């Protein structure tokens, strides 16, 4: 099968490739979003640590 036939998918190109594209997008989202979520959680914890440090310093002075 040559490449142009492959992309044509026997006339069903739109249906097949849109399905695969949307699936790919959802899969990628399921990779990126948890990574972003992790970064947000860690950043939030770091901010909390910093805030507590500041309060401790303030109390000890």
């Amino acid at each position, binding site marked *: 099968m040559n490449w142009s036939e492959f992309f044509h998918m*026997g006339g*069903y190109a739109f249906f097949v490739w849109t399905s695969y594209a949307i699936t790919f997008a959802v899969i990628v989202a399921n990779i990126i979003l948890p990574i972003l979520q*992790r970064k947000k959680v860690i950043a939030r914890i770091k901010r909390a640590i910093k805030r507590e440090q500041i309060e401790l310093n303030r109390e000890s002075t």
Partner: protein
Amino acid sequence: MWHWIQRFSSPKHFYVMSAPLIRWFSVSALLLGVYGLYLGLFVAPPDYQQGESYRIIFIHVPAAWMSMFVYMVMAVSSGIGIIWQIRLADMVAAASAPIGASFAFIALVTGSLWGKPMWGAYWVWDARLTSELILLFLYLGYMALQSAIEDQRSADKASGLLAIVGVVNIPIIHYSVVWWNTLHQGATITKFDKPSMHIDMLIPLLLMAVAFKLFYAAVVLVRTRNEALYRDRNRRWVRELVERL
């Protein structure tokens, strides 16, 4: 043995143990997925009835299977969390929900895009699509309830109970929809209802099914680790870990 289970199921222990597992799951998911797609798109012959459009099956069916599998995992983990108070189980349930919902969404969209060439319409109230749509609603209801309750423990238990009630209902819903559908559509027979599929089509399908499972395993581990970090954010093990990052 109880001590072993308790130690094993501590979020901290889980966090440490899961790191190499994520790498393993994601690499094998990628390899199997690429190979499965290669076989499915290039090697498998066109269907004599549907031509090339049937190739959507290689993502539609595994996604549908996964949407149901993940729901079962969600319900079982919720049960474990409620009965034995193992917090890790609650975290796994919460982490699984968006992934399962994504699979249900993929199943619906690809099913719709497959339906147009096969049945002539983008949406048909086919038994499977209808059941899948209701499953998506069940997922959304679970996620909505989780985020609506402020206290984490209550939220976990409440949405866990909802998941368990949903599991009891899924066979009832599925049966009702299938029955309803046979009344209204006559027998919508698709070639792939029958298990006798050409082996060249079956192998990529099974490979993709396994690849999707491994993908779910990798993603749920990442999300569960995030839950563990967030929920234990005031505990020492998290604080020490974050400071080292």
